């Protein structure tokens, strides 16, 4: 089941300076924002329910618990997914994969294909609905041994996996 993937108009929102070395970063698929939004809603629901329960208990003046919780939930559902989407990007080079992510704590990881041990392609139920997939490359390192790249179109992710594999094969011949 596919949701229609109208591209988001993100031009008015400024991109943070993630590509500090002037490299053009490929943004993720716009459907990723929808996935993040739905995840935020699902995470917020228990908290809203708990706030409602507390409200009905009547310990504090009406609205003292519910209003902040609703405001926070609104922030996380409406504003945060878009910011997280904008802060993510990747570059698929000839012999390396670079993934940039993070709003407050940004992280810029480069994995050369020659160091990739194995490749995972995962689709959660939410991602399957929007035809997205998460590509994870594993290295032999202990810290940051796996680098995740969510929000890719399934076909793109498969193509990237094949490209990485072809490179590994070429390298060892």
């Amino acid at each position, binding site marked *: 089941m596919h949701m229609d993937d109208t591209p988001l108009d993100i031009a008015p929102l400024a991109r943070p300076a993630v590509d500090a070395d002037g490299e053009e970063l490929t943004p993720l698929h716009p459907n990723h924002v929808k996935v993040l939004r739905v995840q935020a809603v699902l995470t917020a629901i228990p908290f809203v329910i708990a706030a409602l329960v507390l409200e009905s208990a009547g310990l504090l003046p009406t609205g003292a618990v519910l209003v902040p919780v609703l405001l926070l939930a609104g922030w996380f559902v409406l504003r945060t997914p878009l910011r997280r989407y904008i802060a993510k990007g990747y570059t698929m080079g000839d012999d390396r994969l670079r993934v940039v992510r993070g709003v407050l704590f940004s992280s810029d990881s480069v994995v050369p294909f020659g160091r990739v*041990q*194995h490749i995972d392609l995962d*689709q959660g139920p939410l991602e399957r609905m929007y035809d997205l997939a998460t590509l994870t490359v594993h290295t032999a*390192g202990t810290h*940051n041994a796996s680098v995740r790249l969510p929000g890719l179109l399934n076909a793109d992710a498969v193509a990237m996996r094949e490209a990485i594999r072809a490179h590994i094969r070429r390298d060892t011949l």
Partner: protein
Amino acid sequence: MTEPALSEPRRTAPVGLLVKALSGLRQSIAGMAAGIFFLRDQGSIIWVALGVIALVALVQLGVAWLQWHRLTFHVGAEDIRVESGVLARAARSVPYERIQDVSLEQGPLARLFGLVEVRFETGAGGADDLALTYLTVPEGEELREVVRAQRDGAAREIAPEAQTEPAPAQVLFAMGPLRLFTFGVFEFSLAVIAVLFGLTQQFDFLLPFDIWDWDYWRGQLAGQSAWLERLGMLARVVSVLAALLSVALLGALTGVVRTSLREWGFTLERTDKGFRRRRGLLTRTDVVMPAHRVQAMTIGTRLLRRLFGWHGLSFVSLAQDAGSANHVVAPFGRLEELWPVAQAAGFAPPPDGAKWHRASAAYRFDSMLISGLLAVIPASVLLGLGQYGWAMLPLAIGTVLVTGEWIAWRKTEHVLDARQVIARRGWLAPRLDIAPRVKLQSVDFSQGPLGRWHGYGTLHLGLAGGTFAIPGVSVERAQAVRDAVLASIAQADFSELNRG
């Protein structure tokens, strides 16, 4: 090999469901016991127990069937692909070049049903290996042969080396009894006091008096101190010193005994297979670390040892080799003794006149500011309360912390030489880490909110079996290091490095 069955996705053996259900039963014993306990009034205990067990077994079987139905593996032309997942689909692909070996394991239950667990070992360490639970034994062996054939066919032809007689082992580092004794003294340990304390807690009923009766002890000390007062101040000082000395002696003795037991006959040799380390008195250990698995080295020391010039050398090796990835190869020696060992593993000392890079000035300012704030806040609270005397304490602590941050900044530096990344840090107990760039796995630059504001971050160099992090690097320097590391990595593929 042209097996037509290879090109289709296959499922694991159905009999494996039974084994999974049984082992699932074993794991949920606690839950079943709780269930039986809660339902014990519903009828005869036997029927209740049987009912609960049957229900749990059915649920386990159902879940296992669902997972089995969804798990397929595919022996492809270039990789092994395993697809699984009911709600969340996962596809893991392991290229043949990365598979070191295929191992077949049989637990007792699996052996009963003629099943085997196939594990594809990559170089990365056991935790993340691809495993297919429960194929039948013939299927498992066939799969192993196929994978080995594919892998050997895909790999370069490695010319068979002429079998020369193995070179005699060369002793790189050894510790005799005198060195062990010195080592033990520096491994001062008050562990025996903790043990004695624990023993008294357990066995205090055996003592003729109540050891926890404070009044009794106060009476004893009152008697003693009255006698001491007669002797005067000097005697009191002497008695305190004697008590401290006896504690010190006890600690040193414990250290010597523990160290001797652990490191007796320590010998490090360079054999043609790698580095061989033997040590131990009661438990003799004999470990060989293949030379090509050494990923990085560390020379470290502690405060007191450094004053006398003693350092220790350890290698970071691929996590597969032993329980702990950090292998101590020369725990206690002079620097002149340690460097030949490091050079035997291919490490080069930092070149003279190298240009060392420190963390960025903004990082220094931020860390000094944060430790200053940690002290200023309680100090201002105390000043606000009017406790001028007490407010001096956090201020003094704060000054020490801030100075410590400044010294730490001065002493934390790194450099890139022809082939390696070298980092050193610490003032009282300095530490030197060296990693050859070609053995690194990935480069990660992470910035917290302060770092993004002021233009610095932590550079994490991926290391197999350890960590190599350089904090406070400015953005430009991080670029430069990253480019150098990636250029070195591009020169060799990891499978080649691992084949030795």
